[in-house]
Structure formats: structure tokens, C-alpha cells
């Protein structure tokens, strides 16, 4: 993957008649613009690969490819005919407009490619569509025409920008900025960031641009003979690929680099995670964030725990469920908000809630159900008569402070049980059973609810089933393909695995209710939060306690419709939220169904009675606060092990060096050639460690002369005379054994090699600075270089193979070309 583009272009680039002068654009244009355009196109298209996941599927990629390559080729053609640089850029713009018109506005454009007045109108529509997509949907968004058009336009502009940077401005290194701009979108939007392929392709394309610009326009100050030799290409390709592979491997090798606390740092996302996207999908991500973001505070006079609802999901068809989309029927938030159905309950509870959204950003407004009026909003807002979701027309929920008056009927189990009248006056959207419901959902629903009973009994049966001990709450499963699926197939997985989180519980209950004939929808918003301890004075209403919720409280729950009572929320998710009084089991009937982290929700209870596990707001399975006895020691043990590992890691070069030296000097028999070689290697490594590495073209004699002449070994005859003698005799021994006659006599009795090496080492240590000594002890360059050689050996091997293949391909290509040319000439 990495080398593929290199491989593709270099053989084609070599046999071309290359301009050798310093100004290739002036003297002869040659293949330069075309090759460069190819490099630009490959890099931009490669970087655009990473947008898969921001846009769903691959259908958008073909228009992108077309746009990028049309722009590239137009500019290359203009450059090939030696047009002025400004003209080339202008041509790039013109071709971008033409290809966009041809692709997206063929009907309205003049001759298909020239935009007309109608095209402009369409363009406005497309851009509105795209901005709605960006605001309202979550990655991966459906590739509608608007967002694809904007993507193509932006990528086309990027090509023009990169081209301008690389060619007329002559700063090819800065083209990385353009590619970075493309990559930053998936880096922030996609849960799994850019992805390996997009990143590799972008980096390879970037290297390709650099290679092409270096190849065709070498620096003026490189000597004529050294520029553009094949070794340079090989080295460059090798260095680039090693760097790329290392970049890809390091995050894998270092645990926790891309999860845990790192993602917030590594995935540049300063806007928090709940920024105006499909709540169905960001919900999972919100729950998984280690720190709560998007804090919302509210103060209410409600006596029951308050769920803040921002959006509903009622269409259960398709792969990915999205929020309701009834923009046509929305009405402006001005006066009274009507539920649109009659409430026959005896008592209506009216609640006043003051909400401060803070940094929470979404097109939908979190409000308690069912809102009657909202005051204090900035901007224009609209409400959906069917679901009462509040959506910004030209604004969003960031930094809004508003007061909501909401009312709910006081519901009891007996009231619900009596509500057996046929459902009337409800949109068909809420009763339609989705197509292709998996069998497991249908059979589970039937077996759980049994044959008869009221709608309430059936709903309670489903909730009981989902809250049973069989199901476990888990944020990890069933996560599909990097983002949380929420379609019917995921629902089937959930019922099979019996493990999931609120989205799965809520949608399971909603779908099963529909199967049983109860109108249902899923509400998405926030579970009741925590008391902050502060109080808020709401004008004309009194002093209320303040609560806070953040991303970790994001929640989804089913709402079922009961004739005469309206939409009634249920809580099938275990360990989350609060089970309403009417929905608790008859055995605990009347008892407040509060759960672990919501004890303080009922005003009046002492928050200190049950300490809030605020550090672990999500009671994840296995991570309960009860298992702290054994885990007290665990951090210590882990820390100890980590310290030991760190110590080992730090000292490993030293240990390796000591091991190598001991191994070399163990052979004490002087005449053995192996011993002499070992001693010589040790001498070379000692020199390397103390800052005098032998050059590859140095003979043993010149190296030993350089060593003795350097200040590492004082004056001969002085204190270090022993070291001098040692070097001389070691060199002589090595020369005799390496170059001498095989049966050469050994020259006199010598001290053992170990003693001579020790003398040399002592002299070296005495003559170098403390820093050098420390480096030689702890980070010996000889060991580091050895490791470097070992690590790069596979790359060098691959490089050799690639070069061989390229050469063979070039040879066979030239043979084939000759073979073709000869008959055509003859």
C-alpha cells in the first residue's frame, strides 16, 4: 500500500526525457505537470478515503474521484502548454465549477456545464441541505446530494490549493496542510478517528508529491552528479515507508495510546462529543466518555425525577434510525404548545423547569415532557405537533437559558390498567410495524407477553423481561463497525446476547410494543441527574433545587401511548434512570423505584445518606465499588511492575552491552581467529561508544591510528601507554588473522584480549567527559546502532526486493517496447 504509488510512478518517470535544467517549466515541460497532477490526485483521493465513515458507504466516492481528477488534469494540461501560473489556477477553478455543474446541476446548467440562475437556486438548496445534514445528523451521514456536492467542492478547492502550494509557490512540503485539512474532518467526527487506510494513503500521497517535486526540480545547490541517482529514490522511499509504518505500529505497540484518556487528546475535538448530531448514535459515545461533557443544569419544582427529552425516534425502518423529520408540519414556538390528544386523567401535574444548556450544542432543545410553553429562548424555534420535540430553525441549543412549563397526568398502575380503549387520533407513524422484523424479536415479544391481557399488562411484561437478571448493562456490545448500530439487526443481536445499553433496551421495548399493537416511540435525552446543592430562584415561581446532567447521563427510553393518558414513558434499562411509580412491579407497588445513583433526586432526602459514587457514575459490570479490598493493592503492584519494567527498559542497552562484551571476551584462546575477531569488534564498539565510530571505508590500521591520534587516548608513552600498546597489538592481531597467511605464526606471547580491552576501556573512560561516560554506560551507541540495523533489516530487504522488481519491470517494459517498435518500423 505504502510503496504502491512509488512503484507505479517511478519506472514511468525514469525513461522520460527529463528536463535537467533548474527551471523545468521554462525550458521543457515534459512529463512534469502530468506526473505531478497524478501525485496530487492520488494524495487527495487517498486522503478522501478516510471520509468513509463520515459519509456512509462508498457511493459518494465516484463523484469525488471525478472532480479531483478533472481539476488535476485540467491544470496539468494548462501547464503542459505553458500557461501563466495564474491562468492555471483560474482554469482549475473553472474546471471545478464545470464538473460540479455537470455532476449535480445537469438539468439547470447551460450546456450542462455552465451554471445558470437556476443553478444558483439549486446550489442554495444543496448548501442548506448540507448544513442541515451537518447539524442534525451523525456520522456516518447518508450521502445525500447536498453533502456530496459540498464534499466534492471542498476537495476540488483543496486540489487547487495544494497545486498552488506545490508548483507556482514551490513549497511542496506545505501541501501537507491541505491534506491535513481533509484528514481533520474524520479525525474529529468519526469515533475511530481517521483510520489506517485513509492515513496511509494520505501520507503516501504526500510523500509522492514530495518525491515528484524533488525528482523533477532538484535543488539548485545540489551538485550536478549527485542529484537524482537511483539510490536517492530508494533511500527516500525507504525512509518514508519506515516512518509511515512506524507511525502505524507505535499506537498499536503502546497500550492505551488510542483509548482510555488519550482519545480526547489525540482526537482533536474541542467541542465535546454531543455536538448537534444524531442523538441515537452519539448517545453511545457520550456514555463512553470518561469525563462528563456538555453539562446542563436545571432547576425544577417537579416532585418526581425529571427526564429531559430532546428528540424522539419513531420510524423503525431502515438500517439506521434517525430523529423525527417532519419539518413541514413544524410550528413556531410562540405561544402554547399543544399535545394534540385528550388527557382524561383526574389530575394534571404542572411543573416549572429552568434549564441552562451551557455548552451543550444540538439543534434540539432538552425539555421535560410535555412542554406547554417555553420562555426565554434566543432565536427561532419550532415544535413538532406529533412528538413535541423542539428544534431550532436557525439556531441551536448552545448557551440557552429558558423556563419550561410542562404538564403530565398523575399516572397510576390502576389508571393505566383501565385504559383499554382503542387507540385513536395517533399518527400512523407510531403504530406501523416495521418491515423485516427479525424472527427473534417477534417470537420473544409473543412469548414474553403471553396471549392476553391489557396493553399495560403487556408493556409491564416486556419491561419485566428486559429488566430481568438475564440482561446485563454494557456499553461495549453490541457495537458494530466502530459506530453503534441501532437498526433492527442490531436489535436481534441484542436480544441474542442479552447485553447492551439504553438504546437497545428502549428500542427493544418500543418495537416489541408495536408488535403487540401498542403505539410506541423512543425518546432520547437525559436521565435524571444529580443535585448540585445550589438553588435557583425562578422569577415568580420560587426557589428550586438545581440539578445537573452531562454526557454520561445521556439516555433513551420508550414511550408507549395509552388512549386517554397520552404518551407514557417506561424504563426498561436496568441500573439506569428511575422506574416510574406506575411502572414498578406490583410486589413493590408504591415503593419509590429509585436506583443506585438517583437517591438524591427526590428533594428532601439527605444526599449524604447514600454517598454518590460520583467518580464512577456508570455502574459497569464488574466495576462495582464493592471490590475495593483486593484492588487496593493492585495499583501498587501494577506500579511496582511498571517501575521494574521501566527500569529494565532503561537499563536494557547497558545490559545488552555488558552481555555482548562478556560473550566476546569469553574466548580466551588467543590464536583462535574467532577470539581475535571478537576482540577487534569489541575495540570498534568501544570506540563507537566513546564517540569515535569507525567509518565503513576505514581500514583497521587507519582506524586504530585515528583512535590513537584522538584525544580519547592521551599521548603515547604517557599514562595511557598501556592502552596504546593494547590498540597496536589488537590491530596487529586482527590484521594478521584477517589478511595474513592462514597458517601464520602467532606473534609472541600477548596479554589476553580481555586485559588489553580493559586497559583500553580504562583509558577511554579517563579521557572523556562525564556525559560521554554516562552515554557509553547507559545508551551505548554501538548497541543502539545494532538495534537500528536489526529493526530496519526487513525494510532494507523489502527495499532491495522492490528495487529488483522495479528494475525487472523496467527491463521487460523496454524489451516489450522495442519488440513492438521494431515490427511497426520494419
Amino acid at each position: 500500500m505504502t510503496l504502491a504509488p512509488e512503484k507505479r510512478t517511478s519506472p514511468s518517470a525514469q525513461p522520460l526525457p527529463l528536463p535537467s535544467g533548474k527551471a523545468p517549466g521554462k525550458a521543457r515541460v515534459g512529463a512534469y505537470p502530468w506526473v505531478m497532477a497524478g501525485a496530487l490526485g492520488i494524495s487527495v483521493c487517498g486522503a478522501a478515503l478516510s471520509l468513509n465513515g463520515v459519509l456512509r458507504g462508498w457511493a459518494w466516492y465516484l463523484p469525488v474521484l471525478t472532480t479531483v481528477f478533472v481539476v488535476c488534469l485540467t491544470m496539468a494540461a494548462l501547464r503542459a502548454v505553458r500557461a501563466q501560473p495564474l491562468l492555471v489556477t483560474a482554469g482549475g477553478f473553472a474546471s471545478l465549477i464545470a464538473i460540479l455543474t455537470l455532476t449535480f446541476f445537469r438539468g439547470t446548467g447551460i450546456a450542462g456545464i455552465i451554471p445558470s440562475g437556476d443553478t444558483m437556486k439549486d446550489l442554495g438548496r444543496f448548501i442548506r441541505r448540507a448544513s442541515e445534514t451537518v447539524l442534525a445528523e451523525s456520522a456516518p451521514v447518508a450521502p445525500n446530494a447536498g453533502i456530496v456536492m459540498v464534499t466534492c467542492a471542498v476537495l476540488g478547492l483543496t486540489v487547487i490549493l495544494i497545486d498552488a502550494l506545490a508548483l507556482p509557490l514551490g513549497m511542496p512540503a506545505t501541501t501537507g496542510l491541505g491534506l491535513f485539512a481533509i484528514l481533520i474532518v474524520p479525525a474529529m467526527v468519526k469515533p475511530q478517528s481517521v483510520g489506517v487506510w485513509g492515513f496511509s494513503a494520505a501520507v503516501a500521497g504526500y510523500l509522492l508529491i514530495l518525491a515528484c517535486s524533488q525528482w523533477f526540480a532538484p535543488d539548485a545547490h545540489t551538485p550536478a552528479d549527485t542529484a537524482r541517482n537511483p539510490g536517492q529514490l530508494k533511500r527516500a522511499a525507504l525512509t518514508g515507508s519506515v516512518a509511515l509504518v512506524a507511525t502505524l505500529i507505535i499506537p498499536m505497540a503502546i497500550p492505551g495510546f488510542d483509548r482510555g484518556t488519550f482519545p480526547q487528546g489525540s482526537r482533536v475535538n474541542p467541542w465535546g462529543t454531543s455536538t448537534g448530531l444524531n442523538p441515537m448514535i452519539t448517545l453511545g459515545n457520550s456514555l463512553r466518555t470518561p469525563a462528563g461533557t456538555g453539562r446542563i443544569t436545571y432547576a425544577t419544582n417537579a416532585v418526581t425525577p425529571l427526564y429531559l427529552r430532546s428528540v424522539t425516534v419513531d420510524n423503525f425502518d431502515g438500517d439506521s434510525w434517525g430523529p423525527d423529520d417532519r419539518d413541514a408540519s413544524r410550528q413556531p414556538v410562540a405561544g402554547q404548545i399543544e399535545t394534540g390528544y385528550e388527557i382524561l386523567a383526574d389530575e394534571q401535574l404542572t411543573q416549572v423547569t429552568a434549564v441552562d444548556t451551557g455548552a451543550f450544542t444540538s439543534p434540539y432543545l432538552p425539555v421535560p415532557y410535555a412542554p406547554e410553553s417555553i420562555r426565554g429562548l434566543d432565536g427561532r424555534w419550532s415544535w413538532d405537533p406529533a412528538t413535541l420535540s423542539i428544534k431550532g430553525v436557525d439556531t441551536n441549543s448552545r448557551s440557552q437559558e429558558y423556563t419550561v412549563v410542562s404538564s403530565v397526568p398523575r399516572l397510576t398502575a390502576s389508571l393505566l390498567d383501565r385504559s383499554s380503549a382503542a387507540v385513536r387520533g395517533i399518527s400512523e407513524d407510531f403504530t406501523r410495524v416495521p418491515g423485516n422484523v427479525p424472527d427473534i424479536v417477534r417470537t420473544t415479544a409473543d412469548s414474553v407477553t403471553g396471549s392476553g391481557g391489557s396493553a399495560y399488562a403487556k408493556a409491564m411484561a416486556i419491561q419485566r423481561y428486559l429488566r430481568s437478571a438475564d440482561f446485563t448493562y454494557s456499553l461495549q456490545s453490541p457495537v458494530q463497525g466502530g459506530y453503534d448500530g441501532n437498526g433492527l439487526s442490531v436489535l436481534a443481536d441484542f436480544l441474542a446476547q442479552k447485553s447492551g445499553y439504553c438504546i437497545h433496551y428502549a428500542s427493544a421495548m418500543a418495537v416489541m410494543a408495536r408488535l403487540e399493537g401498542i403505539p410506541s416511540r423512543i425518546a432520547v435525552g437525559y436521565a435524571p441527574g444529580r443535585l448540585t446543592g445550589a438553588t435557583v430562584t425562578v422569577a415568580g415561581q420560587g426557589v428550586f433545587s438545581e440539578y445537573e446532567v452531562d454526557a454520561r447521563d445521556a439516555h433513551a427510553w420508550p414511550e408507549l401511548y395509552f388512549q386517554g393518558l397520552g404518551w407514557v414513558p417506561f424504563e426498561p434499562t436496568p441500573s439506569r434512570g428511575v422506574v416510574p411509580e406506575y411502572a414498578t412491579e406490583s410486589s413493590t407497588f408504591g415503593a419509590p423505584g429509585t436506583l443506585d445513583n438517583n437517591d438524591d433526586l427526590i428533594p428532601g432526602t439527605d444526599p449524604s445518606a447514600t454517598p454518590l459514587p460520583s467518580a464512577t457514575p456508570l455502574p459497569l459490570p464488574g466495576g462495582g465499588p464493592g471490590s475495593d479490598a483486593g484492588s487496593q493493592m493492585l495499583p501498587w503492584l501494577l506500579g511496582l511492575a511498571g517501575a521494574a519494567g521501566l527500569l529494565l527498559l532503561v537499563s536494557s542497552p547497558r545490559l545488552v552491552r555488558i552481555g555482548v562484551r562478556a560473550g566476546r571476551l569469553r574466548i580466551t584462546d588467543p590464536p583462535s581467529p574467532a577470539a581475535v575477531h571478537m576482540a577487534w569488534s569489541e575495540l570498534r564498539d568501544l570506540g563507537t561508544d566513546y564517540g569515535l565510530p569507525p567509518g565503513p571505508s576505514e581500514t583497521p590500521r587507519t582506524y586504530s591510528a585515528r583512535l590513537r591520534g584522538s584525544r580519547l587516548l592521551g599521548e603515547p608513552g604517557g599514562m595511557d601507554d598501556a592502552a596504546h600498546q593494547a590498540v597496536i597489538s589488537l590491530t596487529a592481531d586482527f590484521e594478521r588473522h584477517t589478511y595474513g597467511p592462514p597458517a601464520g605464526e602467532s606473534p609472541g606471547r600477548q596479554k589476553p584480549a580481555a586485559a588489553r580491552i580493559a586497559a583500553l576501556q580504562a583509558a577511554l573512560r579517563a579521557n572523556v567527559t562525564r556525559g560521554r561516560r554516562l552515554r557509553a554506560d547507559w545508551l551505548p551507541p554501538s548497541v543502539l546502532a545494532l538495534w537500528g540495523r536489526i529493526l530496519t533489516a526487513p525494510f532494507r530487504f523489502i527495499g532491495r526486493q522492490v528495487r529488483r522488481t522495479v528494475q525487472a519491470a523496467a527491463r521487460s517494459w523496454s524489451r516489450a517496447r522495442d519488440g513492438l517498435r521494431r515490427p511497426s518500423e520494419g
Partner: protein
Amino acid sequence: MDSHRRTAVNEIETASRNFAGIAEPVTQLNGHKVQAMDAAAFHSASQRILKEINTVIDGKSEAAKLALTVLLAQGHLLLEDVPGVGKTLLAKTLARTIDCTVSRIQFTPDLLPSDVTGVSIYNQSSRLFEFRPGAVFANIVIGDEINRASAKTQSALLECMEEHQVTVDGHSYKLDEPFMVVATQNPIEMEGTYPLPEAQRDRFMARIFMGYPDKASEIEMLETHQATSPLSKVSAVVTAADVAAMIAAVQQVYVSQAVKEYTVSVGRATRDSPLLRLGASPRSMLQLLRAGKATAALDGRDFVLPDDVVNVAESVLAHRIILDRKAASAGETPHSVIRGILNRLPVSQDLAGAPARTAAKPDARTAPGSGFRRNH
């Protein structure tokens, strides 16, 4: 005259020889078998020669040592420099330190090949053609200003250099051993001269640039050489037989596989260099290695080091290679190119090369032995 015929005969004879035209090894001197000199005697003899030369030529010990190296390696020496730096003096001194026959040819444009090789003259009294040996019949032949002679005469000498024999009228006459030609060439005065073409220069083992002496040497020269000719004081310190024995000793110097590989890689590097139009020939590789052996012997070793090859590489190779036009205009010289190649060429000496060496040892023991022991 009859040079054409002679050439034809020579070709037939050389067909059976070594392609590189290397002289026959010294196995006999005037009918006696030559014993290789032992190390101590070799050392003292070489020191005596060098000392004697250095008394005459001040501050040129390197050139003197290189001249002796070429003599012991059975090569020929080309001295090239401006006039008056002692080219001829060096040649003469070297000749005089050895008790052997010396002849000097002053090359002029009208010199004929027969003046060099000799000629058959009709003897009236015996009514036979008698061969009168030319100037080349000597142990050391000094060819002064060889570029002044015509190409025909030059090539007559060059053929003698290669064959170590003269063929006139179908008769081959062996030249004495040791045989060495020391030619001088003047690169300044080029008008009306025939400078040696590259192919001819290849026959000389080494070329020495004398160079100017340093200040102290020059002052000392003025002091000592004021009245008398320095050559008059020179006396022979070794005999021709000694030199033959020394040559035999040089031939016994051991060359390891690693050094052979290094030598070959030097040659290949010159052929691959983009700076050179013509790299070093295989003959030059042989001569490089022989010069390396002589250097090793003069250094008192019985085996060749890569350093020996490096030391003589510039002198041996520089006059054989031809620079690329672009490199020449960029200011490169043959010497700088060779220095650059030697600076880049890796010398295998690390442990990575050691296993390969031990594996290659069996054939290193047999292969060079067979090519080597043949010599004595």
C-alpha cells in the same frame, strides 16, 4: 623498417601468455636459480637503497619509496612533472644504488626504433648479420622525455617493457632481469611532442608527480649540491642479484581473499563512477595488487593489508583513468576522484564479514596458493 614483422612475431608468441602481458616471474638470473631473500635481509637492503637515494634527493622520500616499490613489483615507472624537479636525478640515483647495467635514452623526434631495440648489421668479415643490442638491453633503462619521440619509437620501447624481450629479424633476445624502465615526461612543453596516449600509459605501473621540495629541503639542496654533482657520491649498495632475490621475496607475500575482493571492488568502483569516462583495467588491478605486495614487503610484512592497496592506489590508477568531461569542468582531477572512491568504499572488517571469511577460508588457502606457488 622491420617493425611490422617484429610485431607479427610477437603476437604469435604472446598468444600463449598471460593476457595482461605481465613479465615472466623472476625465476632465474643469468642461469642461476633465485632464492627469495629473508625478511631481515630484505629490510636492510631496502633501507640501504632508500637511504642512499635520500642523500641525493632531499625531501622526496615518498617518491623514492614508490620508485623502489615499482622496481620490486617488476613494474615500470613514469615520472611526470615540470622540468627541474629532479625526475632524471631520481631515475639515475635509483639506477646507481644498484650494481647493475644502466642505459639512458634521450628521446628526440628523430630517434628510431632500432636505436632502442638494436639492429642487425652485416659483418663484412664473417659475412653474417650480427645483432647489435640497443639501449634497452640493460637492467634499468632511463627514457628521458619519452614524449619527444615519435609514436613508432615509443611503441618499440613499450613492447620491450611488456615482453621483457626484443625480437629482431625473427630472433628473440631476452632482456636482463631485473628489468625496469623509468620514463620521464614533461607535461608543460607540449609543442612538437607526442604525449603518451592513455593506452600506452597503462603499461606503466605507477606515475609519480615529483612536486616541488619544501623550503627546508630546498635550502639544504642549495647548501649541499653547490659544487659537486650529488650523483658522484652515490655508490651501489645492492647487487642485481640482491634485487632479484628481493623481487622473489615480494612475490611470496601472501594476499588474502579479503584484500583481493577489496582490490577488485576498487576497480569496479572506478568503472561505475559517474565521474569517469574510463575506469581501471583488469591489468591495472593486477599491477595494483603487485604494487601492494611490494609495499607490504617494504613495510616488513609477509601479507598485504587493504592499507597497502590504498597507499599505492592513487599512483597506480590515476594515470589510467579518464575523467568525464563534466567532472573535469567541475574541477575534479583523477587523484581527487580516486581519493573519493577510496573514502567511500567500505572495507569489510566487521564481524558480519567474519563468518563469510571463515567459510571462504578453504579456497582462500588453495586458490591463491596454486596461483602463487607457481612463482618459485
